[in-house]
């Protein structure tokens, strides 16, 4: 119960942070700029638009989640607001978990706003005739076809956003826990590095070396969250159940974040404030 009260308060507090609003504004500017890719056909434009926009949401989502999480606990200490909260019948773990969930809610809200913008633009693009570059014949607008395309696009983007969000969920957990040990700027750099290394684990060949294998297992497998291919080219014939895969990586994210947050809560339990 206290966890939820603290999470809600953290959410309200975080939303007023100017730096997050600046990131959000920048993301919207870039989302809008991508609309200027007008010289492609509707299908090509939709494909390029989705891949660009999902990348923008991922990058700005990561910036927002790290920036939010690295300050969650340090700001409480610095402003001394933590004293009056922990002097109440609030368990340390409730406070820590509440701060993390508040951060995660902030990220969800920001990603949600960006996603709404993306989906709305996709609906507009879906209204154009879905021709390829060599089929330039104008086609009449048909409401039923448009609604079907909207539904299709919506489900695709929803799946992508869910997977993308759970990636940010892990990032938020890592940055929140590291904030117990590191100054915000160092924490920002370390969390960003973990995200980058985790995203390129296969490329870096971490699973192959004996020395790097423990790192491979310890670091979050962010590369598994990259489902861009199946979203951007939905008809390419990937032989997997996409929703089951999304659910699988989301569960992995929740489990990974839980372990990290519980470890943080255990440390925070004996931390002097």
């Amino acid at each position: 119960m206290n966890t939820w009260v603290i999470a809600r308060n953290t959410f309200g507090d975080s939303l007023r942070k100017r730096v997050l609003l600046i990131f959000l504004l920048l993301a919207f500017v870039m989302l809008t700029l991508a609309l200027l890719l007008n010289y492609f056909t509707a299908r090509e434009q939709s494909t390029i638009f989705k891949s660009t926009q999902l990348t923008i949401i991922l990058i700005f989502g990561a910036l927002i989640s790290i920036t939010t999480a690295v300050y969650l606990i340090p700001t409480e200490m610095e402003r001394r607001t933590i004293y009056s909260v922990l002097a109440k019948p609030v368990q340390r773990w409730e406070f820590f978990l509440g701060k993390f969930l508040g951060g995660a809610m902030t990220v969800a809200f920001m990603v949600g706003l960006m996603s709404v913008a993306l989906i709305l633009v996709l609906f507009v693009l879906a209204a154009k005739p879905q021709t390829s570059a060599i089929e330039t014949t104008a086609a009449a607008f048909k409401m039923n076809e448009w609604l079907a395309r909207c539904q299709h696009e919506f489900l695709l983007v929803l799946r992508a956003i869910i997977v993308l969000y759970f990636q940010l969920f892990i990032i938020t957990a890592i940055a929140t826990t590291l904030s117990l040990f590191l100054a915000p700027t160092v924490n920002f750099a370390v969390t960003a590095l973990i995200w980058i290394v985790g995203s390129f684990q296969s490329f870096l060949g971490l699973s192959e070396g004996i020395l790097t294998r423990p790192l491979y297992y310890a670091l979050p497998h962010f590369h598994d969250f990259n489902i861009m291919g199946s979203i951007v080219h939905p008809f390419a014939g990937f032989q997997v159940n996409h929703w089951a895969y999304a659910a699988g990586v989301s569960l992995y994210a929740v489990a990974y974040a839980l372990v990290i947050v519980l470890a943080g809560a255990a440390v925070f339990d004996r931390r002097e404030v």
Partner: protein
Amino acid sequence: MAVAIRAEGLTKRFFQRGEVVAVDHLDLEVETGEIFGFLGPNGAGKTTTIKMLLGLIFPDGGKAEVLGYPAGAQEMRRLVSYLPENPYFYDHLTGGELLDFYGRLFGIPAKDRAKRVDSLLDLVGLRNDKAKQLKQYSKGMMQRVGIAQALINDPKLLIFDEPTSGLDPVAHIEIRNLIESLRDQGKTVFLSSHQLSDVELVCDRICILNYGKLVKAGRVDELVAEGRTEITATGVPAEVTGRLTELTGAVKSDNEKIVVTCSDENLVNDILDVIRGARGRVISVVPLKRSLEEIFVETVGLAGPHRRIGTMNTLTRD
């Protein structure tokens, strides 16, 4: 009388460029229903002690109990409230929302919470500012809302760290009266303050901390009493004045008026009998008192190295 706070050998060390003993084997007992003044110069270890009592930091030695529970226990925090020095609260909230937030942390049901928030805002004179964001509050208003949040759970023990800091004289008196009314309601108040005049007026007992050690403790009335009485009278004949001088050794004459200073309580009635017997008129009988400020300065001294204005403070222990 039951004990609200008991500390035995409470010790806290910090390691900042060497070891600093912030609280040094502190023994303390605060009785229920009293206002207890917790005094000491800056860096004496007052806030550190309070933080240990609340479980915000952990002692390196000794133990403390609050309302019968180990210091910092969750059950204890349900019955205690705390107003930090220079309180900072979530300034994105309004005054009403802030109290509601703290009320939720105590699990107070929504209906009771709403009533309690309104009555507390009334009590501290912020009813009309309920919907104003805290970032628009003045320092005095912040202090008042801090006091209101400290009362949200109807606590048995209130720990106030400089509750009148930043308040104007009228608000100052209101808060002092509020503290006294809390005692009248049977609550215990643990008051850490530099406002020695307030402490002298409201506290039943005090203790003075210096360099983390308890250096003086006792009832305020006993500490400030000098044990001397000053009797002023007129119309006393010269030969009687001589007798009074023999009795007390301290008589001053000023025209018609004489001032007799008596350091033996048992002699006061004898002196009055002598004056009245000589048909003199007693104007006043005043037990002489020292101020708490005098006692404080005498106890902690004026020239501690960390208290000199304009020198580097190397002992930041609070």
